[in-house]
């Protein structure tokens, strides 16, 4: 779907509401009433195209090869409920610009939250010092371009909803969790939403803007039975509108999921210790793909030759059953994007095809050094961070087995249901932490098991996946790397891994 010009202009208008104040430090960030946007007019955070061109040129004045401005305005809101009452709500505003200068493999970065020409100029000169010398580089006229896809909800956004509406959502989830079972003693239900406006301009003469909504409803529930306690979690959301919680993911189901997990954990035993056949459920096992495949294939660790995958491009690295891709253009997910944070248009990138390593996750810098295509994976947490290669929505494609067949095939093993998360090193060694799992005995799920760490190395586990099911589920996550957190998803079908170390007692 192509973005409608109308939508874009509407978005720009909103963006201007924020930006119009900027030239005056003491101006009003919320001056919607005094600002009058003319339809179709584009004003990039109070800067003219010519100002932006000049600033990009100043950033190159010490010999840099590439310069970029990343303008951001973001409003975050949240509201939470626990112990029967709304405990509070919050609103947070972020506004600023990051200036980046690249020379060869070197990057200079600076940022400021004072959006005046003079202050940005000073910041640009600081970032420029990465290069040492003089430059007569000029920046061509700025040309605006537009995203080719619209992957976010554009109507009925939660950031436009009233606080009352948001409270209704978290209350429904809260009540459902409390009512699930008399053993539930505490529930926390919260909704966090944001709207982010970005304008990205670079010395190649490109300028592009994007408006990104995000929302997440999170419930945690604690169950108690005598001295035993268990906590369960449920969450859902994405770059969606209000309809999502009416039609796709009802708050009461999110609440129920959290409560169910908490109660199930009351009777869960410690997992057994040792090597077992492991079945990863479709629900959240995307964690494994994210850690074992996604991170090791990020361009930066590869051009720096720090990743275990650096020398394996073009080789068979996984079982032929495995096809893995990253696709930001899937609509409405947490990792969905029209453009990345360098302004590159997002597209589907194949990473592993029938077991063969065929692609990297690239930002501009890694694409250039690795001589690989840019594919829209340069992301950053805020204007205060420089972009680095990141995942968006990373998926392992479904196969042909049925989930039932897979469980039935295991005589004794471990079934992973929900996760706390995962972690990986450049060495390919990774863990994922299971919150709730089940023992598999003679092809059936029997006892619930709690808190087990599964550990392996990616080059082994990718070869040890020997069954891939025809179902599919998505894990909603926040990914941390180099001190930056970005929203992502990772999806998988049910998978069987021949042998893995299960950390238990």
């Amino acid at each position, binding site marked *: 779907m192509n973005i409608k010009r109308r939508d874009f202009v509407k978005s720009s208008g909103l963006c201007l509401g924020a930006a119009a104040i900027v030239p005056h430090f*003491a101006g009003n960030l919320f001056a919607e009433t005094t600002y009058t946007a003319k339809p179709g007019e584009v004003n990039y955070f109070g800067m003219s195209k010519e100002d932006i061109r000049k600033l990009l040129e100043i950033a190159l004045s010490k010999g840099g090869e590439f310069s970029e401005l990343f303008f951001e305005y973001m409003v975050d809101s949240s509201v939470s409920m626990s112990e029967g009452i709304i405990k509070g709500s*919050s*609103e947070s505003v972020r506004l600023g610009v990051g200036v980046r200068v690249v020379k060869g493999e070197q990057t200079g970065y600076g940022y400021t*939250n004072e959006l005046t020409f003079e202050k940005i100029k000073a910041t640009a000169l600081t970032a420029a010092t990465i290069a040492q010398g003089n430059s007569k580089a000029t920046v061509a006229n700025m040309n605006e371009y537009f995203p080719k896809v619209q992957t976010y909800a554009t109507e009925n956004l939660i950031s436009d909803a009233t606080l009352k509406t948001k409270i209704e959502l978290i209350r429904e989830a809260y009540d459902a969790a409390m009512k699930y079972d008399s053993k539930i*003693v505490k529930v926390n239900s919260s909704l966090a939403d944001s709207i982010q406006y970005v304008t990205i301009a670079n010395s190649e003469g490109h300028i592009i803007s994007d408006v990104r909504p995000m929302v997440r409803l999170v419930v945690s529930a604690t169950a108690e039975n005598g001295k035993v306690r268990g906590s369960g979690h449920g969450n859902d959301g994405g770059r969606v509108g209000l309809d999502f919680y009416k039609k796709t993911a009802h708050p009461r189901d999110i609440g129920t999921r959290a409560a169910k997990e908490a109660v199930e954990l009351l009777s869960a035993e410690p997992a057994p210790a040792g090597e077992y056949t492991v079945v990863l459920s479709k629900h959240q096992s995307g964690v494994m793909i994210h850690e074992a495949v996604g991170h090791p294939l990020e361009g930066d660790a590869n051009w720096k030759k720090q990743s275990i995958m650096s020398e394996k491009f073009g080789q068979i690295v996984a079982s032929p059953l495995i096809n893995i891709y990253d696709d930001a253009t899937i609509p409405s997910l947490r990792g969905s994007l029209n453009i990345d944070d360098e302004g590159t248009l997002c597209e589907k990138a194949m990473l592993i095809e029938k077991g063969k390593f065929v692609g990297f996750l690239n930002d501009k810098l890694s694409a250039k050094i690795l001589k690989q295509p840019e594919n829209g994976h340069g992301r950053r947490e805020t204007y205060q961070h420089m972009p680095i290669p990141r995942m968006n929505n990373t998926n392992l494609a479904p196969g042909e087995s049925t989930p039932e067949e897979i469980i039935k095939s295991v005589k004794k093993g471990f079934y992973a249901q929900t996760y706390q998360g*995962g972690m990986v090193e450049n060495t390919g060694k990774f*863990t994922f*932490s299971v919150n709730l799992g089940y023992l598999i005995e003679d092809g059936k799920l029997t006892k619930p098991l709690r808190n087990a760490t599964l*550990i392996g190395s990616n080059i082994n586990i990718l070869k040890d996946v020997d069954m891939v099911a025809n179902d599919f589920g998505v894990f909603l996550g926040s990914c941390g790397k180099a001190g930056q957190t970005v929203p992502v998803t990772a999806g998988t079908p049910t998978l069987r891994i021949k042998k893995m170390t299960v*950390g238990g007692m």
Partner: protein
Amino acid sequence: MKYNSNLNDIARHFVEFGKKAGADEVQISIYEGNDFSVSVRDGNIEELNEASDKAASVKVIVDKKVASASSGDLAASTMEKLIKNAIERAEYSGKDEFAGIPTKTADYPSDMSKYDLYDEAILKMSPEEKIKRALDMERFALADKRIRASGGAGFGTGEGTRVIANSNGILGQYSTTSISASVSLQAGEGDDFQEDYWWESSHHLNKLPSGESIAKKAIERVTRLVGAKKVETQVVPIVFDPQMSQMLFEFLLQCISGSAIYMKQSFLVDKIDQSIASKMLNIIDDPTIPGGAGSRPFDGEGVPMSKMTIVENGVLKNYLLDTYSAKKLGMKSNGHASGISNCYIAPGNVSPEEIIKSVKKGLYLTNTIGQGTVPTSGDISKGAYGLWIENGKLTYPVAEVTFTGTLSEMLNNIDMIGNDLNMRSSLSAPTIKINNMSISGK
């Protein structure tokens, strides 16, 4: 020591504005700072970062109903609009009898310089000098033939001022400087390599350990893991090196935070004055140590901080409480709205060498990977790296195994506490030995 009376005026102005706009209680905190960082790799500058930061956060209470806001823009019009919005939103919150901001109980020390958190010398360092320090540290590390790649070396400096003000008369400010250096390394060959790093930081330029000593420590940590293998699944003692002890006690601190307790998301609910660990264990939090990594006069709500015992001879004496969680639990805030200050496990009288010598068969744990901690149950399960101990001696390196246990059992199974406490961060611990740990491998 720096003092910015202008920031106090701004904070006071917003408190008054909030009161006039209809809030019963208002709390404002402001941070303003400047940071510089450089990272180098393979002898070249890779990233150079320089920026100034500002942030304010505000909490309002109207009729015992709470709302909050934050902004990176301190302009009066922005902040005033946010405060007005918060007051309007508060109406939608539930009436919470425990809501409230602290009242002023005591004056802060008039001379903040005794905390020794600010060093002009850091501000006088030139960017060239900082870059050189990072390059020298990395060069030293790469000169070791066992190092296969540099993950980069970093050097950073910072300076910042914090202000807290509220409508009950609290107004405080302190400034800090910081300096830090780190280096990350890989060692090994082909697909069999390891990575590890080391870092140091201080409020004072001349207290930062040399780049050479940081590089040496990183080299030692990464090279000793090369060639690591799995061990059998078994139950043995684990010797936690100081970093790993720190990791373990970080989990304990999570389990005694006031909010985890009143939300019952901790295995240590209702355990004050009860034995929770071996009698050997003593944990103290001391915010008054001059120049200490976490030293400060007051917490994030402006409540004065003082030396506090957390665990005494194995008995839990205090939770980490802010004003709200304290009221919920019928206690008094002990100044931990922003966590611990300088928390340490009191050292024992055996050397780490003697501890290792006491183990017939077990794991010397030097690194972990993964989350795997659940405060509600106290369960812990993490991926482990380290060195195998045979007959009191360190032998071959171990990886791709996990250790699993419950914190409750582990605290009670502490068998030895080392004398090697080094207060290098806000949580510090010596080497400790814990018996009966479950290791999962092949």
